[in-house]
């Protein structure tokens, strides 16, 4: 596409602006940017596919709940158990609830929820949309005057954007309960004391930053899955590739976002 015909003087036009890889990278970035812009455009343009949105919420949120609950509970127990020896060296095992609270609310719950959702929901979206692309169902929808972007992408991205924070709430509660089970067994701490220390250690900034991060993670998972699926090619091989790259890219972006969010939150906390 970048290659141009030979000039009249016989010299060849440059095939790539920079290099082949860099040109592809910037083209990809452009397409991602355009995809995002289109999402926000389609979001405010009716009709809104409510049934599909509910369906996607059910798929992304409700069906992920058992897996994420179990994971959260195990993380609460494991993190508590692993943290105990370090605190015990200082004779500070009474600080376990505070440590668990800070770790789970600030980082673990949003991050673990997002990573699990990226694996389960992101791959599902990528594979579903990829197979629809490969089997030309998306083209068929366009022909039948149905806006495939609105139906497929907006509903899914919106569903993941709303469901991941909700799942993060559940994960937080369940992981804290997992931590309580362990602390209660080992330190005989009462329920009231445990949750008093839990809430004593966190601030509103921690809670709201975790919620906002979860929204961003959810948006990222939905958007990456939809993008990879929507732009998949090369037949059935492309479906698997779309599913796989959805998970890998989403997870990578989640970690990058976590890092950026951490810097921003620390800057806010310092003021």
């Amino acid at each position: 596409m970048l290659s141009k015909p030979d000039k009249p003087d016989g010299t060849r036009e440059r095939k790539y602006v920079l290099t082949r890889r860099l040109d592809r990278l910037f083209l990809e970035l452009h397409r991602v940017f355009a995809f995002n812009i289109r999402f926000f455009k389609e979001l405010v343009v009716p009709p809104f596919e409510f049934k599909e949105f509910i369906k996607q919420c059910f798929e992304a949120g409700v069906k992920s709940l058992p897996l994420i609950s179990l994971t959260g509970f195990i993380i609460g127990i494991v993190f508590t158990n692993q943290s105990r020896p370090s605190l015990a060296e200082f004779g500070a095992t009474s600080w376990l609830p505070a440590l668990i609270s800070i770790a789970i609310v600030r980082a673990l719950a949003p991050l673990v929820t997002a990573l699990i959702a990226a694996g389960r929901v992101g791959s599902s979206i990528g594979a579903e949309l990829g197979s629809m692309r490969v089997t030309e169902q998306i083209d068929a929808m366009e022909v039948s005057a149905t806006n495939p972007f609105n139906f497929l992408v907006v509903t899914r991205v919106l569903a993941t954007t709303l469901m991941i924070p909700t799942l993060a709430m559940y994960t937080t509660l369940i992981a804290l309960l997992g931590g309580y089970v362990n602390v209660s067994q080992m330190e005989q701490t009462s329920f009231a004391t445990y949750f008093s220390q839990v809430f004593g250690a966190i601030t509103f900034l921690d809670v709201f930053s975790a919620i906002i991060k979860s929204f961003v993670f959810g948006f990222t998972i939905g958007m990456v899955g939809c993008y990879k699926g929507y732009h998949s090619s090369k037949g059935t091989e492309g479906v698997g590739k779309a599913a796989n790259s959805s998970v890998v890219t989403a997870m990578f972006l989640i970690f990058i976002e976590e890092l950026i969010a951490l810097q921003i939150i620390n800057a806010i906390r310092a003021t």
Partner: protein
Amino acid sequence: MSAAENKRSVIVGIFVLLGLVIFVVGVFTLASHQKRLMQSIQLRAVFDDVAGMRKGNNVWFSGVKIGNVKEIRFYGDSQVEVIMDIQADVQQFIREDAKARISSESLIGNKIIEIFGGSAQASPVEDGDLLTAVNPMNTDDMMATLQENNKNLVTITNNFKKLSTNLVQGEGTAGALLTDSTLANNFRNIVASLQQTSANTVQASRALNRFTSRLNNSDGLVHQMLTDTAVFNRLQASVNQLQNATTAATAITDNLQQASQKLNNSSNAVGVLLNDQEFANNLRNTMQNLETSTQKFDENMEALQNNILFRGYFRRQEKDQQKVQETNAGAADSVNVIP
């Protein structure tokens, strides 16, 4: 909308609602824990150094969390003004002369502001009041003190090292005690003697105990002396009499002394008898003369008994004497015959 879609919508609704409930309950619990929903007043304190205090740190009064730090800002040249949000319901307990100091929740815990003191005579604080700040000890000061302690510890350790070396090498009394076997034996003997002494002391103590028991016996003299006033009075009278007797004895002694002085003096008859050598010689001659005279008188009397004129008289006396002896012998025989 089909039944399946309805069911799905309801489930999603419940799912989202429960998530929201968790969020809302969490936020309200956090708010109540941080006293965000309660009425509050603001108090201020100006510190030289806030030692890393941060916005949101807790404020304690008598060990109870009553608020948190709302704002920290510079004040004057280099001081720091800390504005605290305090629960309105504890306002009545904090007095105007209360003080604020920066403390720590625990050894490695968060910084807190601790409000303390305040007299009952002072009125309660008002919104915006400035509390007197007690500046915390700087970490550097603490480290300097610790450094001083470390130096002292090193000196003590060195001294102890020297001491232990001397002990091991047997230098000094204590070292010799530990290493010299003779000294050890002596010490052992001393200990044995001490044991014996202590055993004796125990026995003495028992004896003393028995003695004091006897003293405490109501029949004893000492007990009566200590307790019975009549005995004491009698004893006092006896002592008075003894004192009088002593006075008399002293007078007698004086008299005897005077008498003995007179005996040594030749101005009286006894003194002459005892002291005058010439008188003694005269007396001795007199006695010799008297003895000679007595012998001659005895010879004269014998000559007189043999004289014819007085012989009859002496024979009658002999006969009377024989009669008396016979009479006495007869009386003695009659007494022996009677059973």
